[in-house]
């Protein structure tokens, strides 16, 4: 409004820009620049890239990563979409359980999933030891097969959730129209339903692809030396012989490139394929033959049980007596006692840092979301893209970038807890921003204008009207940020130092020193800690929903 251009929102815009530039853009640019520097810090055009693409040791990592992520994406799409159709369209017994279970599978960070499969099927694993008594053995779980299994099982719920939501927005009349025009059922799915789902399918596929590309913990734990881009990047950066930041940055830059290309491709495709669907009556549940129903039921439960195995294995094994990697039948709190003696700091660090990061994410996220939704300008569009960049950038790259930038004056953050907080905060800022922007787009701007016209100045209107109306989005954004921050490993493993190890780091080191019991106990706490806010969110939002807010 006239004469009030430099208001509070102007300050927020500037603050948000400075934050994103300092903690995301500058580190990323530094990584890109470093990838072009030589051993003696001179600018060497593409020497590192030449070395990368001429040495099998290096280039095998990008081949492995692309290969694994592509297969994992296809597998997750197939599994997630089929399950979504089965649950949405057929009268399977226990459909609410199936939906909830697929949600729950998202709670354990992938590297914990990887570890749980090692606990079950690894060399010293429970299943292999039982089979060993009979003289049998299973093919190895380690290597690319294990990684692929974990990737698909850990990431298919993203596809399931997105496709399920999209299916709810398809009107029954679409299917009826296709069938009445003489299109057989299978052809109807292919030609009438799937095209409408295309944006959600590709969005789900993108999440799987970017997530698996960036996944550091899974290949570390179950890959047994199989090099992927993030693990090799970590190895190059943290090498005991001194480390090679230039090569690590090269790997990081390639990782950014691959993910950015995937993101752009999906955006471009989804933008062109986005249809406005008016849904009055959602797709109905179909009757089907007993045989087909049985088949679908077995399939759905098999998928969901496999998805829940990691969490169950972890929690059960945390209560078993252990000796190194070997677990014995029985009940014991030994593992919990050990962790409270050995790593109490890690537990406190994780909860403290996560809580602080989530509070900051929500605080800035709410303000930025308001700007993006209500004060749309070119500057805000740029800010939007920059914040969303955090989605596409792997934690390993953020970690390396932050270290390279903040381990020298004027600002030294390495070795402190602040650098962990910065990484957590900036990487998970998109969650509250996204949820709140989406919510604001549904809140009638006239409600705010009504408040202003009734004599309440804009900022007080924001506090008294807008924030209460955004409440569900704030809560769900916070819950998502909490869930994804609390088990964060890929940047923590680079950024922690001495006393500032987190639980995820502790799990990782416990696994590598063969203390499976303590790793399970820590992972159990993580899973429960991720679950509780999500559960509460559903409860709270359920009530709010009843108010029609």
């Amino acid at each position, binding site marked *: 409004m006239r004469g009030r251009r430099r208001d509070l929102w102007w300050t927020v815009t500037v603050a948000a820009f400075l934050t994103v530039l300092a903690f995301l853009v500058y580190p990323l640019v530094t990584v890109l620049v470093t990838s072009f520097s030589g051993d003696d810090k001179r600018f060497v055009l593409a020497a590192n890239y030449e070395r990368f693409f001429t040495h099998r040791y290096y280039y095998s990592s990008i081949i492995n990563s692309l290969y694994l992520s592509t297969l994992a994406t296809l597998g997750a799409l197939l599994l997630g979409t089929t399950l979504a159709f089965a649950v949405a369209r057929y009268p399977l017994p226990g459909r609410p359980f199936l939906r909830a279970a697929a949600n729950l599978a998202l709670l354990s960070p992938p590297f914990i999933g990887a570890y749980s499969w090692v606990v079950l099927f690894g060399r010293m694993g429970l299943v292999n030891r039982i089979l060993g008594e009979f003289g049998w053995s299973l093919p190895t779980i380690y290597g690319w097969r294990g990684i692929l299994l974990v990737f698909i099982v850990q990431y298919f719920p993203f596809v399931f959730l997105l496709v399920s939501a999209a299916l709810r927005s398809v009107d029954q009349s679409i299917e009826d129209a296709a069938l009445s025009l003489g299109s057989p059922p299978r052809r109807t799915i292919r030609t009438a339903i799937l095209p409408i789902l295309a944006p959600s399918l590709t969005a789900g596929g993108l999440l799987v692809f970017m997530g698996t590309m960036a996944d550091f913990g899974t290949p570390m734990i179950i890959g047994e030396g199989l090099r992927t881009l993030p693990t090799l990047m970590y190895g190059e950066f943290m090498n005991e012989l001194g480390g090679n930041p230039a090569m690590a940055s090269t790997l990081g830059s390639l990782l950014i490139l691959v993910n950015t290309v995937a993101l752009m491709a999906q955006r471009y495709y989804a933008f062109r394929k986005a249809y406005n669907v008016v849904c009055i009556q959602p797709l109905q549940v179909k009757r089907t033959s007993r045989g087909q129903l049985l088949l679908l039921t077995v399939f759905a439960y098999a998928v969901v049980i496999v998805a829940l195995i990691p969490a169950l294995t972890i929690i059960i094994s945390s209560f078993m007596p252990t000796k190194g990697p070997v677990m014995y039948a029985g009940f014991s709190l030994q593992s919990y006692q050990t962790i409270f003696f050995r790593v109490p700091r890690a537990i406190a660090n994780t909860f403290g840092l996560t809580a602080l990061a989530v509070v900051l994410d929500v605080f800035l996220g709410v303000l930025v979301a308001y700007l993006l939704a209500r004060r749309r300008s070119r500057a805000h569009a740029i800010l939007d893209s920059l914040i969303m960049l955090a989605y596409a950038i792997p934690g390993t790259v953020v970690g390396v970038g932050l270290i390279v930038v903040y381990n020298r004056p004027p600002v030294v953050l390495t070795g402190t807890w602040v650098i962990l907080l910065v990484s957590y905060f900036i990487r998970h800022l998109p969650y509250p921003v996204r949820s709140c922007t989406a919510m604001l787009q549904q809140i009638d701007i006239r409600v705010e204008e*009504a408040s*202003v016209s*009734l*004599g*309440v*100045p804009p900022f007080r209107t924001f506090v008294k009207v807008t924030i209460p109306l955004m409440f569900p989005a704030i809560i769900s954004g916070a819950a998502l940020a909490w869930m994804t921050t609390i088990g964060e490993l890929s940047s923590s493993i680079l950024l922690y130092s001495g006393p500032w190890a987190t639980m995820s780091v502790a799990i990782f080191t416990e696994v590598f020193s063969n203390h499976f019991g303590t790793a399970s106990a820590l992972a159990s706490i993580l899973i429960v800690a991720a679950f509780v806010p999500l559960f509460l969110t559903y409860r709270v939002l359920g009530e709010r929903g009843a108010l029609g807010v």
Partner: protein
Amino acid sequence: MTRVQVQGIVKRFGDMPAIDGISLEVRPGELFTLVGPSGCGKTTLLRIIAGLLDQDAGSVLFNEDRMDEVPPYLRNIGVVFQSYAIFPHLTVGENIAYGLKARRVSPDRITAKVAEAGHLVQLEGLLDRMPSQLSGGQQQRVVLARALVIEPRLLLMDEPLSNLDAKLRVQIRSLIRAVQRELQITTIYVTHDQEEALAISDTIAVMDRGRVLQVGKPWELYLKPANRFVADFIGTMNVFRGRVEEGAAGDLRALVTGFGQRWQVPAAGAPGASISVGVRPESLALEPGANAGETWNSLTGMVTEAAYLGAVVRYEVRVADGLNVTADIHNPDFAAIRLVGDRVTLWFAASRAVLLPDQAGEA
């Protein structure tokens, strides 16, 4: 009571002028309606008066107070939005009390005033409900009470009835008018519905493409539309183009229509000038047979459509190639019914013809 003056308001969105230099005066205590097709700028003008939008040029005055630099929350106006803009997280009572709390009115006074406002809009007993439990008509009453309870200098209403069904629309319309009369509050009302505008207003301004074409009482706009746009927008108008000839008595001149009919109409304009003449459907009488020329101001044609509506029959009569005339015959008895295909003669009294300048300039 507040007098509102709008002086030379201009507002552009990009290169498009949304408001192209509008000046208006709203008299104290009257209900003043801005009516026009969608996109004519009526809501934009309302939002500028409310202070929710800044004009590029011009001024808004409430009595002698220039409001241009006054932010909306200090203007003390009640606004009723098309989408209601009810606060969904507050009860009905809290919604109504919202503006009073902002004015730091004492809790006792708030309770009393909320009850009074609730009574005024017939919402007693619903004050503890949440908005989601209310019907559309009840929600509309809540926002009306919420806007009135702060005793605003001015009440602004933006298409307040457009989300209601036809029956409720008439009901709430009467309520708004009754409350407005009782409180004698200056009100600016925006609608695209000409019938609603005629029914509710003291004064109407017809807008098109960012300009005001005519301001007047409802009957002035209907009976003496300033130009063709107003004539078409307010009610239905048959328009005939023709050329002025000399040789008639009194104020009347002879007019030769484009299809060869010679009429006597109150036509200002030099002989030879080209003009348009409008005749309302209800000003036309209809007889069977082709008798044109026997009386002045008549024309013959064939019925192409006949819609029997009970109190009225609406006929479409083709009088020339590409020229259809609409005629409303009220209170028709059996003998007056004509069927599609019948030859008929239409005629009208000279005094009911309206001279219509073609351009919008005469506003």
